[in-house]
């Protein structure tokens, strides 16, 4: 297991008022993403617990792209990962953000 935390500053807060949302399931090649609107509107934190060690740089790149694209200001995002591929991670993050924007 490996724990990773990434902190970003966003240009804007994520729209919507939903306080929390969860998507995905922890399974082999899959992950769950818990999103909570608890941070300052220009802050985003992504905390990852992953079953697969040694992919920190990939996580960093995926999270950075996601933050640049979705501008998830205000969100603390917590991930339990069962060894998902980067594309699955990116997809779940976007799915989570869509739930929070609703």
């Amino acid at each position, binding site marked *: 297991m490996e724990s990773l935390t990434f902190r970003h500053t966003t240009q804007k807060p994520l729209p919507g008022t939903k306080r929390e949302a969860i998507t995905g399931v922890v399974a082999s090649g899959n992950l769950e993403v818990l999103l909570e609107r608890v941070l300052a509107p220009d802050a985003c934190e992504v905390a990852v617990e992953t079953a*697969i060690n040694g*992919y920190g740089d*990939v996580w960093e*790149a*995926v999270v950075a792209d996601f933050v640049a694209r979705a501008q998830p200001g205000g969100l603390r995002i917590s991930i339990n990962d069962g*060894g998902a*591929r*980067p*594309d*699955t991670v*990116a*997809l779940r993050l*976007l*799915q989570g953000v*869509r739930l929070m924007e609703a």
Partner: protein
Amino acid sequence: MNEWRQERAARDARIAAGSAFATGKVVAAESVTDLLEAVLRPGDRVCLEGDNQKQADCLARGLAACDPSRIHDLHMVQSGIVLPEHLDVFETGVAKRLDYSYSGPQGARIAKMLYGGQIALGAVHTYLELFARYFVDLTPHVALIAGVSADRDGNLYTGPNTEDTPTVVEATHFKNGLVIAQVNEIVERVPRVDIPGDRIDFVVEADRPFYVEPLFTRDPAAMTETQILIAMMAIKGIYAEYGVKRLNHGIGFGTAAIELLLPTYGERLGLKGQIATHWALNPHPTLIPAIESGWVKQVHCFGSEVGMDRYIRERPDVFFTGSDGSLRSNRAFCQTAGLYACDMFIGATLQIDLMGHSSTVTQSRVAGFGGAPNMGSDPHGRRHPSDTWMKAGREAQTSGEPSLMRGRKLVVQLVETFGDGLVPTFVERLDAMELAKKTGLELAPVMIYADDVTHIVTEEGIANLLLCRDADEREQAIRGVAGYTPIGRGRDRAKVEDLRARGVIRRPEDLGISALDADRSLLAARSIKDLVHWSGGLYEPPAKFRNW
């Protein structure tokens, strides 16, 4: 005076020797080894039929049991190295040389035996290449083939998996070779004659039905959102874009997802009748919903698929069937159809390098080629135009005399950026090159050469290599769809954005597709049971695919 009938005399002698173990043409299963020891000669070229769906397994067991002091140094010339016995003969010394096409299930063992020098390898071929050589310099002396049934005169019914049989018999029988067929049963009258009896010298009633594996069944339950996203991009960005009507699909989950999206996503895009109407394809169960929704005009098959027989019988407007109603497949003809009459091949691969060369070998496995390189190559002998072919040709060729322009076949690689176990699909250097070095192969086993590939589709986007004007653009186009693999992260971001602006790279959003829309609810069938429902109960899946 020249003797012009030595080969024929030799064949007559073989038949005479074999007849000691036969009643007429019929030989009992327990006499197979005796028969083979009687008719074979050391050094013979032997074709032991090993197809995808039809294995001469009883004859293979008989051959493996031959006494190597009597039968040795055979030169095996067969398309598939599939059964353990296909390699056992090299361990005992019964066989020495090998020319073949495909060795999927035995890929690891064959690699070991190549390293160990137990096999003298001629070459690994594509199907059409090997078939062609049957008629030039690899003509079998003896062919050991398989069928469903035969009568006592040797008239043979291959069943729906005709596959290689006509080609093998054509080359062997008409050039003074001997043909031995194993059948599941001897009958008074065969349902249809796939091979006339005068081309078959002996018929063995096998001890059990020949082995068949459902190689082309992809369970929709295992399809992922990523595969669905890639399939959506392929449909919108390639099938619709080029109006692809005549095509061949690979056997991976990505193309199976496309098959299942035609009646749903394709229908929504108004593409019915515009794309994917004529196919060179095994009867994939995942094609059933598209057939039932009226998308598919016709399908010619290399071989059949387990469980599809009844369905095919009830859909003769779509499939090629015999007077008895069952499928007539033919690998040589279908490969030819895929090569010359299809405007697109689309399939998956394990590795793609920075030029676009692709390979399915890993360092420890020699899987061979099968037919993909035939499908996945641009045939320079093609002379008939089609809109798809011409459009691709125009994209590739921007200068020169338009009337001398030739079209291009679309050769599309459909891959996820990471494979199983987070192994990157995109690599600096193909494992195939390492393997060639280790085994002393003159040619690295490249499945599809870079100059044949026109598009690479991943979950990150479509790279249109036809539009790349130099090697650097090509490399950046490939990096630009390689996702978070080291190759993908090594991209020049500015160049990739420039390629995107020119439409060389197209992202899902450029195609009006949201990754969030890639949902399993889009699949026309989400389980094998759904496929059974679509088929009106005619599809009979094998037990291992059932959950009811």
